[in-house]
């Protein structure tokens, strides 16, 4: 029902060259994984450290810039469970959802301390935390994106291929907007 994890905190206008520098562009998943956050100041260890289960919590316009899908794939390979940002860049948000990774927007998201425990309740469309105490609304996902996440990505949704990753959205009853 819910995705809970320790937050990886990122700022505003974090672009895809910072999230995944082009020198890590590769068809080899080990190289793609090693490039995760390799131009983001303070995340020098992210290419090798264990980030399984983490939830990326970011500011405005997260993922702006290039369309290189290796950047989105690196999140999947690093074991990130979900992304929540004040707002998401268009191509990047499509790329991660197309791979089956939930990416949602929370416009009222405040600045959080590193490693804050957060919970994304996709069924009710809420972002919650205990310390600090938060219970904030998410922007409802379009029914198309709900269906894509439930299928495990765009290709399985269209019947054109298998899920790219572990299907974090597949077993989750999703928030469909409305009261």
């Amino acid at each position, binding site marked *: 029902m819910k995705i809970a994890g320790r937050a990886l905190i990122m700022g505003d206008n974090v672009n895809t060259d910072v999230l995944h520098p082009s020198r890590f562009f590769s068809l080899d998943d080990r190289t793609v994984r090693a490039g995760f956050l390799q*131009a983001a100041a303070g995340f020098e260890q992210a290419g090798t450290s264990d980030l399984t289960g983490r939830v990326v919590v970011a500011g*405005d*316009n997260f993922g702006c810039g290039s369309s*290189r899908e*290796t950047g989105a794939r690196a999140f999947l390979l690093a074991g990130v469970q979900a992304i929540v940002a004040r*707002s998401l860049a268009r*191509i990047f948000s*499509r790329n991660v959802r197309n791979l089956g990774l939930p990416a949602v927007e929370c416009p009222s998201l405040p600045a959080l301390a590193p490693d804050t425990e957060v919970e994304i309740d996709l069924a009710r469309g809420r972002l919650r935390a205990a310390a600090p105490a938060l219970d904030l609304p998410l922007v409802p996902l379009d029914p198309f994106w709900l269906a894509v996440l439930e299928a495990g990505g765009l*290709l399985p949704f269209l019947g054109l291929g298998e899920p790219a990753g572990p299907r974090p959205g597949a077993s989750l009853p999703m928030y469909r907007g409305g009261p």
Partner: protein
Amino acid sequence: MTPETLPETLTEKILRRSAAAPIVTGSELLRIPVDLVLGHDATIALVIERFKRAGRRIWDPSRCFFAADHFAPPSTPERADILRRYLAFIADQSIPDDLVYRGISHQLLIEDRRCQPGMVICGADSHTVMAGALGCFACGMGSTDILALLLTGEVILPIPESIRIDFEGALPEWLFGKDLALEIIRQLGEGGAVDRALEYHDRTRHGLPMESRFTIANMAVEAGATNGVFVPDDALRRYLTERDGASGPLPGFEGAWLEPDPDAGYVRRLCIDVGELCPLVALPGDLSRIVPAGEAEPSSVQQVFIGSCAGGRLEDLAVAARVLRGRRVAPGVRLVVTPASQAVFHACVRNGILDVLTAAGALVTNSSCGACGGIDKGLIGAGEVCVSTSNRNFRGRMGSNDGLIYLASSATAAAAAVTGRVCDPREVLDGQRLRGFHREPWPAAERTSGGAA
């Protein structure tokens, strides 16, 4: 517009011509048939294995506009392998290979008869938006979206609302598309146009040169826009007549001459008097700090890059040659020049522009993406400063995480090459060098005067 329909923006008009029903009940996303799909060696390589597993053919190989521009030629053994797989895929799928090694895919698109107004064009690269200067819907996307498109002939998109941008006034000789593109981003902000279309109306006194329009549309994505589209006008008609000749578009690639309805609804409007602007630079790191070039901290510069789909056209190289003719690149600066396509390269050879630039000390590389994406031939090291005519100044984009990138027009970039520091190009222009530039970027008088310092 019929009485039953609401007035439409240009983007709405293009997409609603062909859009079918919502992809799922209640969704704002529609299935939209695509006229042309742009691809290149890097991002298409990411789809090949999944494509093979799907066990189907491409819906229409003739509508694949596939270049080789990232790893062309390759600079590592792995990239050689990626390029080889990509070329084998093209051959196996009977995709036209006439664009391979001819230059940057986005530049090839606007030079090609297959790209026409009114079309829906999607590409496996964010700068596909540049083709919107030709009055079409052009939008970039990631590899999984492109894979689905190759198999189905459709993309799944919402129809974006539009921000209308009117250009007015008279364009000064020392002002270019890059300055206007930066001014738009300065006003909208980096994410100010996410999920929106930018609709440009050229109402300037003499009209914006097409080459400047390409740069403006190219950088629509830097404000987060889905697409940027110029309203078709006489300048576009002249461009297409010259480009396509009497024969016009290829059969099956006719497009449509569409305009927005006069009373179309816009979510926001900007009016930019181009006569009141000064040369701008984007300060290093991102596009959130855009300032007059003369007000930037006058950092000393180690590299100037004139190239990319945003700043490697004939106009860009001609203005650089005008600034550099009879001068030398400052000591301690390397000037890297990468014509955006072979057509641009050949035109610059014919006109003596490359003579002038190389005589001034420029290093000229083959037409490809090169230094812009930190791929090869012009990367920067820790602590180095680069003034670039490309479209992104992001941390690590052109090499070291500790290098600094300023974005500027090629006039401003060439001025930095001469002085060795970031400055307003008017500081080094004597008032004669750019006279008449927008009418005739590289007049015969410049060609015969030679490049020797």
